């Protein structure tokens, strides 16, 4: 049975870095944890998702051809199960947030400037739009239609709460950062600055570190 090995690149997408499969899986795990703990929907990582699925499908094909009960095959299968779990969990996290904040997620995507990274993958965007339409139709049919004229509209954007960016998160520092400004809770406290040493772990408001999560300088845990 042929084993996959070595590095690869996606020549169609020029933003794709040259990455080994091991690094790819590492990136998937990072994205998984970040998405799990971030209160808002993060930038989509479609290229990682697609490459991982490619790896899984390739491995699955190889496994089909392998001898039944082969030890090597069971080892590969255990690994693919683990990777598939991380991938599924990652995509589920995203879907949950898309559904939870659907008017805001769509608004953000619509008002995105040309060239700015997309938050939703094309498939997620289609899903989000359908979710919006479906939910709006439901509310209209089940309640609003029967109500007096001046009560018939509901502004979903105003009604559905936005993600709480002030929630606290735990993180590990990957790239040293200096002078992170920490805003105080009460009026008596003053704002102060902290340094993020590489490898250190912190508890802090998400809002303060949101750009660092996006850039990969910190990892949410």
């Amino acid at each position, binding site marked *: 049975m042929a084993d996959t090995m070595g590095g690869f690149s996606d020549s169609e997408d020029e933003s794709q870095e040259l990455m080994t499969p091991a690094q790819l899986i590492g990136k998937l795990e990072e994205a998984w944890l970040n998405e799990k703990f971030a209160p808002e929907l993060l930038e989509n990582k479609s290229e990682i*998702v*697609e490459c991982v*699925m*490619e790896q899984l*499908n390739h491995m699955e094909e190889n496994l089909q051809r392998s001898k*039944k*009960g*082969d*030890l090597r095959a*069971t080892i590969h*299968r*255990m690994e693919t*199960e*683990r990777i*598939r*779990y991380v*991938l*599924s*969990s990652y*995509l*589920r996290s995203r*879907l949950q947030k898309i*559904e939870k904040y659907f008017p805001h997620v769509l608004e953000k995507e619509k008002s995105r400037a040309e060239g700015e990274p997309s938050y939703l993958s094309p*498939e*997620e965007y*289609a*899903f989000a739009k*359908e*979710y919006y339409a*479906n*939910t709006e*139709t*439901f*509310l209209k*049919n*089940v*309640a609003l239609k*029967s*109500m*007096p004229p001046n*009560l018939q509209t*509901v502004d979903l954007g105003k*009604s559905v709460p936005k993600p709480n960016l002030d929630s606290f998160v735990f993180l590990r520092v990957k790239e040293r950062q200096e002078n992170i400004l920490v805003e105080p809770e009460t009026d008596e406290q003053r704002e102060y600055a902290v340094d993020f040493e590489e490898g250190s772990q912190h508890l802090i408001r998400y809002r303060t570190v949101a750009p660092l999560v996006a850039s990969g300088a910190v990892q949410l845990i």
Partner: protein
Amino acid sequence: MFCEKAIELIRELKRAADGQLPAFNEDGIRQVFEEMKALYEQNQMDVNVAKSDGRSDLIPTIKFRHCCLLRNQRCIAAYLCVFYDRLLRIRALRWEYGSVLPTAIRFHMCAEELEWFNQYKKSLATYMRSLGGGGGLDITQDMKPPKSLYIEVRCLKDYGEFEIDDGTTILLKKNSQHFLPRWKCEQLIRQGVLEHVMS
């Protein structure tokens, strides 16, 4: 008293246990709407009369009804909120039960909720099919991290020979217990031949 019905509905929905979907109270909601409609129409009439006849003595009544209407409106807003909460519970059902809901649960849903559920599962299916450049991935599976690939099973019926690792075979006799690869057992577990023994 005006608004009582709306409040009662909200209480009823909030009383339901977490995650449970109580039956849809069609009568209740219709009564609230009828009350709102009656209030609104009465108000309109009085406003017109007050305007044309100069009936300023009607104004306190109009104000009172308007307050009731506003209160009802807030109740409805809260009820919409609870409707939405029901929707979230219905959404959770797709992830817990799959795309076919148990009959008992379906009876608790009104027609519009069923329609929402059908649309939702269609959207989800489309999304999942489109993953990975069209290969698709069922993300409603693999809900828990994979544990040991081997599981302890007990044989519930005589099955005969069963081939496992390295070509070796084992004999599945009723009540025998074995330590086997999970994926090989899954079908037999579903068929009722084997039973997973939790340690």
